[in-house]
Structures are given as C-alpha cells and as structure tokens.
C-alpha cells in the first residue's frame, strides 16, 4: 500500500501524541489534561464509563472539535487546529458511534464516495458516464470484507438492517485507507455473529495500520487490543495490558465493577 510505505520511513517517535489536551463545554470538562503518546501498535482499546470523554476525545482528534487547551501531534506535526477534512487527508480517519452514513444513497455509492475522494478528490465536474466503474472493483471487495451481500449493494443504505448499517459505517472509513483508524464502538448493537466477524476484520486491518477503538464490549477489547487505555471523568485513569488493567482496583472501582 502506497500510504503505508510512505509513512513507514517517517515513523520515528510516537505516531499520535496528545499534550495536556483539555476540552470544556461551558463549565463541564469533558476531556481533562490528557497526555498520551501512541506508538505504532496494532490496536489500542479505550474503555471507560459513559461520559468519560471517549467520544469527545475522538471528536478532538478528528478535528470536529477544537481543544480548549493543549496540542495534538500526528507524526510530530501539529494537527491541533486543522479542520476535519485536513486531518482525514493526512491519514487519520474515524467512524462514528451513532451510525453516520449516506442514508439515501446506495450502499455502493456510500463506499464510492470515500474511494473517489482518496483517488481523485471527487470534485471533477465532468467525467465519462462510466467513471464509477473504475472504483467498483475496490468497492465490491471492501463490501465483501465487511460482509454486505451483493444483493443489497444497490439498495439505499437506509434500507439495511442495523447491523449492516454498522458495517457500511466501517466500510466508509476503511475505503479512505487511513494510516490511523479511530473506531467509535464499532460493534454496538450488532448480533454475536456480526461482532465475531467485525472483530476478525479489525484484527486483519490492524496488520496494516494503527487502530484505536472505543468499545464497551470487553470481550471484543480483550480479543483485539494490545493495550488498553482506561478513561474516567475526562482523564486517563491508567493504561496497560488487558490482564493488568482487569485487576487494577481503580479500574474495577470506576468501570468494571466488583464481580469482573
């Protein structure tokens, strides 16, 4: 992969680095003085109770929110105040917790949008009538991977059942072929089967890129994540391997509960 080889040479020091990042809404501090350096690791998992600031952290990283304080570096370059599209173009792409797809477009067009942006920018005003064909092969491969049957690919994305909409959500982010993939609860509301398949898919993806995943499903986290970051009330409580985090008394207190 082109993007991959480019960045492999640059990768000295942490890929993603947050320095004293804080975000407050009025009086409410959603993310509180977060310092975090992520090296190249296959998968980071972020866990924490609702309201711990996980999604806000993703909004900050992807440029949808500006931090009230602090600095964010991607390969040592400042991305703190970049708009979302610039962050995405540099290779940091996120998915959304609340399914965010193009409801009235066909499933294929959902994916084509993401592919054409990466390949040609998607702003050509005039093109041959078969311009879409050059992206269809890649789009179909991707849809195979996320598990959307061919029969549904020309239907409006809105007509899919919930689990497959989550798959489209994931597919759009993947089609951008990011260097770092931020996944916000990718398995929320999926059936056991879908969860299994999605977990495998994420594991496969993580061979080529860094994945940061917010999850409530500890089973998924345990399977996937090489390192767990625990958040609570906007701050990072601790980070470490799943086995260590699992028995940390503070984590049990804040998130896991006594019986875990």
């Amino acid at each position: 992969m082109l993007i991959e080889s480019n960045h492999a040479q640059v990768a000295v020091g942490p890929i993603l680095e947050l320095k004293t990042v804080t975000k407050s809404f009025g009086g409410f501090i959603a993310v509180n003085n977060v310092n975090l350096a992520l090296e190249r690791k296959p998968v980071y998992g972020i866990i924490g109770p609702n309201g711990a600031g996980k999604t806000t952290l993703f909004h900050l990283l992807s440029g949808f929110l500006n931090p009230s304080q602090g600095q964010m570096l991607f390969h040592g370059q400042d991305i703190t105040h970049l708009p979302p599209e610039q962050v995405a173009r540099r290779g940091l792409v996120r998915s959304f917790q609340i399914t965010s797809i193009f409801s009235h477009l066909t499933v294929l067009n959902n994916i084509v949008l993401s592919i054409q942006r990466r390949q040609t920018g998607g702003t050509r005003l005039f093109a041959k009538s078969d311009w879409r064909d050059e992206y269809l092969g890649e789009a179909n491969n991707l849809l195979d991977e996320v598990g959307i049957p061919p029969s549904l690919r020309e239907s409006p994305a809105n007509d899919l059942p919930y689990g497959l909409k989550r798959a489209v959500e994931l597919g759009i982010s993947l089609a951008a072929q990011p260097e770092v993939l931020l996944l916000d609860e990718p398995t929320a509301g999926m059936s056991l089967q879908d969860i299994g398949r999605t977990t495998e898919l994420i594991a496969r993806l993580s061979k080529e890129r860094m994945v940061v995943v917010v999850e409530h499903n500890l089973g998924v986290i345990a399977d996937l994540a090489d390192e767990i970051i625990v958040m609570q009330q906007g701050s990072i409580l601790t980070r470490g391997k799943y086995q260590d985090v699992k028995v940390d008394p503070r984590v049990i207190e804040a998130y896991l509960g006594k019986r875990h």
Partner: protein
Amino acid sequence: MSYYISLLFNGLVSGGFVALMSLGMSIIFGMMRIVNFMHGSLYMLGAIIAYFLGFYFGASIWIGMLAASILVGVLGAILERTLIRRLYGLDLAYILILTTGLSLFLEDTVRNFYSVTSSAPFLVPQVLKGAVNLGFIVYPKYRLFVVVVSILLCLGTWFALERTRLGALVRAASERPSLLKCFGGNVPLLISGSFFFACALAGLAGALSAPMRNVSPYMGQEMINIVFAVVVAGGMGSIAGSVVMGFASGILQALMAIVYPQASTVIIYVLMLVILVVRPGGIFSGVDISQFPLHYTPMTERVRAFFLSRPAAMVALAVGFLLPWFVYPILATDIILWGLFAVGFDLLFAYAGLLSFGQAAYWGTAAYVMGVLAMTFGAPTWLAFIAGVAISTTLGLFFGLILARKKGIYFSMITFAISAIIAFVVNQFADYTGGEDGLHGLSRGTLFGMDLQNDRVYYHVCMAIVILVIFFLCRLLKSPYGLSLLGARENERRMMSVGYNVFFLRLKAYVLSAFIVSTAGALYALNHQFVTLEMVNWRASGEPVMMTLLGGAGTIFGPVLGAGIVVVMRNALSSITDNGSLYLGLLFITVILFARRGILGESLHNILDRQQNTSPHNGSDGKTAGNHSEPVHSSKEAADVD
C-alpha cells in the same frame, strides 16, 4: 432634544408591533420548530377585524383588541389542528410553502370582501385621544398606550413561560412531547393552546395598529419580512431574543430615519446579515438549529437516474418544441425562463440541500446590469448580456464565500437578507435603474443575422440556451462532483471525516446556481424588453421555490413543469378572475398536503419505487427509532458527545 426623544418613542411604537409579532413567531418556532409564514396575514386580519367592528358597529379599541385576538387565535388554532399538524417533523420548506399558500389565500379572500386602505382613528376612545405631557416630552396618548401594552404583554408572556407551572408544561412539551405524555401532560392541547396564543398576539398587534397605520389586505407582507429577520437575528425560538430585537429594530429604524431615511427599511436586513455572520446562532441562544437535518423527501437514486436518462430528455425536448404552438411565444419564453430559474434554484435545494429565499438577487442583478449597460452606456445587447451574467455570477461568488459555511434556516435567512439588500441598492441608484419605473425599451438586437425581435425566433434562441444549460447540468449531476454534492447534502460530517472540503463543494454549487439564474434573468428581461423592481423583489425569490415543489424537486424537468403550470395559470386566471393568487394559494396547499414530491416526483415515485420496494426494514432497536408524528427535535440526535 425632545425631537429625538419623540423619535425614540416612535421607534418603540413600531418596535412594539414587531416585538408582539416576533414573540408569537418565536413561541411557535420554539414549540413546533415551524416557521409560520402566515403570521403577517394574521396581523392583517386582526387589523381588518378591528377596523370593521369600529366602522360598522362603532366599537372601541378595547372591543377591537379582544375580538381580533380571539378570532385570529381561533383561526390559527383551527389551521394548526387541521392542516399544519400534518407536516410536523418534515422539512422547513414544506411548512413554509403551506403557510405561504395559506397567507396568499387569506389575503386574497380578504381583498375580495373588504378592500380598504385607510387607518381607523375612530377606534380610539376618548380616554386615549389627545396628547399627554410626560414632563420631558408631549406625546400622543394612543401611541404611548401602544408602547405600554406591548411592553406589558411581552413581560407577561415571559413571566408566564418562565415562572409558572403552565409555562413549565409548555417548555416540557416543546422539548420532549412524547415524554410529557407519560407524565399525564395533554400535549396536543398545549400545542394548540400555544398556537392560539401566538396567533392571538398577532391579531392583537393588528388591532392595535389599526388606528395609526394603513389598514389593507397586504399590510402583513412587509411586517412578516421584518419579523422573520428579527426572529432569526434574535436567535430562533428565543423569547427574550425576539422581544429585544423587536424593540431594537423599531428604534434602529427610527434612528435611520434621521441619518439616512431611504435605508430605514433595509437596515434590519443588514443588521441580521451582520449578526448571522458574526454570531451565527443569533444574539440570544435559542434552539440550536445548525444541525437541522433535511427532512424533505429526496428522490431515490432510481428516480433520479430516470430523469437523467435519454428518454426523459427526448420527451422534454419534444414538449419544448411544441410549446410555442400552444401558447403565445412570449408566454412560452416566460415558461422556459422561469423554468430555468427554478432549475437553478433546485440545484441548490434538491442537490446541495440548501433552501435559498434570495435567488432573485441574481435574476435581477443580471437583468439590471445588462439593462444599465445597454441603456445608459449604449453597449450592444450581446455584450451587455454577457457582462450582466458575468458580473451577477461574480456577485454570487462573493456572497457564496459567506453562504457556503451556512446551513439550514441560517442559509435561507442570509440569502433573504442579501436579496433585500440588492433590492435596496437597485432602488437607491434610481438614476441608472429607473427606480420604481424600471428600465424600458431594451432591444433584443440580432444574433448571427437572426432578428431576435421576432418572438418566435427569440423563443428558440432561449430554448437552445436552456437545453444547453440543462444538458450540462445533467452531465454534472452524473459526475463525481454530483455524487459528492449529494453526499454533502446527506451527511456533511461523514464527508468531512473522509476528507472532503464541504465548503468548496457547496460554494461551487452556489456559484453555478447563481450563473444559471443570472442567465435566465437576463434572457427574461430581454423577453419583455424591460427590467422592473419586480425582478429583485422577494416575491421573485419565492416563485422558483413554489414552482420547484409543485413540479417535483430533484427531478430536473419538474421545476420547468411547475413554472409552466404557475405561469399559465396566472395568465389564464388573470383574464377570468381577480383571484389568481387565491387559486394559486389553494394549489400550493393541496400539493404540499397531498403530493409532497411534486407532480413529476409523485407520479414517478408511484411507478418506480412502490413496485420495487420489497424489503422495508429498519433498525429494530427501540431506542433509536423515532416517532415522526411528533415534532422532531433533531439537535438531540446530533449531540453524541458521550
């Protein structure tokens, strides 16, 4: 000194009317998320009722105010229950068209029965006659009365909403209607009650104004424009914002009347524009509507593919060539040019998801620039035409830089303000533009040896241009950019998250729309060989909205069909009846209520979509399913900050 104080008081008087109206608009918007465009007509009805009671029955202002508020309130509540309620949860545009239709209907009906244009001083009782000495100023008692009544009503409403149990129920009902039901609240009654109250305020404001303002069936039109601007600038749905801005607008107008009298009407639009650019949510924080989703029913890709196909184009071409054999060529030219105007509008509306109330800015600017160049500077027509379109499109680029960052109703309001400012400028340079008289005697000239003065020849030239534009538009909509534009309409955040610059996507669409509309406008002026203020009037911006929804948004040819129906109906109706707008109003109401996709859209939907719609399923998670029979308050959906 007392001169300035009395001016200030005059400002408070007119500000009082605006505040009462804005207060009602704001309550309705806060409660039901709808913009009530018939609010101006309700104001007019209030004034007419008071006038009528005073003139025929010798009633005083007390009776007039009481009767006007009750009757108008009841009428509003009935319309809410029977018609408006059906559209809750749908895109703003639909309710806007419905209430505009209702307002056309009301105005024309009143004009039929009761056409007066004078004030009603006879309503003023003895107590309120004459002037009163306040120590620092001698001021007419009745005017003072207006100020006191409007301030008391505004304060009283604020108190009732913020400090009483009833107010708490109303706020709860507007925030989460279905939840309030689970605590025994009678939500439909609360909604109808609020609607009644808001409309009653409009009726009362009308009655109050009757003794001092010209009572006429059209008095609501200017009022609604100002009120709309005030409500947006104050912060949509913010009670305090609309009241403060209401009074402020009156005072500002009074001050402008000293400094620069001609600008006293346009100042409020300028103010709104500045406020929206500097502080996008309005002065006070009202309802967060920046994330308002697009509820209007977009065409499915299947339907769109049909309209972009060759057979559809062939049919449209055939109709185009046959048209001048059925109607006068001038009328046929009118149809296709209004159609082109509507197509330009629809590019923004259906494809970019932006509802513009101000496209007449380009329709008129191109015409005026061309007219001025040809008439005053003697430029040849073809050159004036090209320059007109070019300058108007450039203007579109300039405004586009502001507008492409805006969405939803803010976008709509800024386009509206821009067109109001353009209309003002045109009027200000009357030396060049002819002011009220307009520019007459434009010559179409010749093109490649063709005599364009011949109406039939001119029709075919216009036709060729329209075909060319629509052809390129179709190509464009099938291009990568077309898909990206749809993506940005569907889900802006998602587009940004994969790297699209949504601002540029929108900017391009806006400039393109300005270009199409400019072309149509300049050709239209040549068709009639004159340019008038009508072309920059806000009504001219409203026409394409109606034509598009009538024919079918997003169907390419729908807007042209809609234009045909409107133009032909107006023409035919004007020869048999005075009530053209009454019937047009009814037509809009019917279409909005029963054929929301428009004529072309609805028929195609029935043929293509229904039969193939096999597997209707949605997420089965109870927590995410929405209940669309209630006002949908989307800001919650959008707030997924965990």
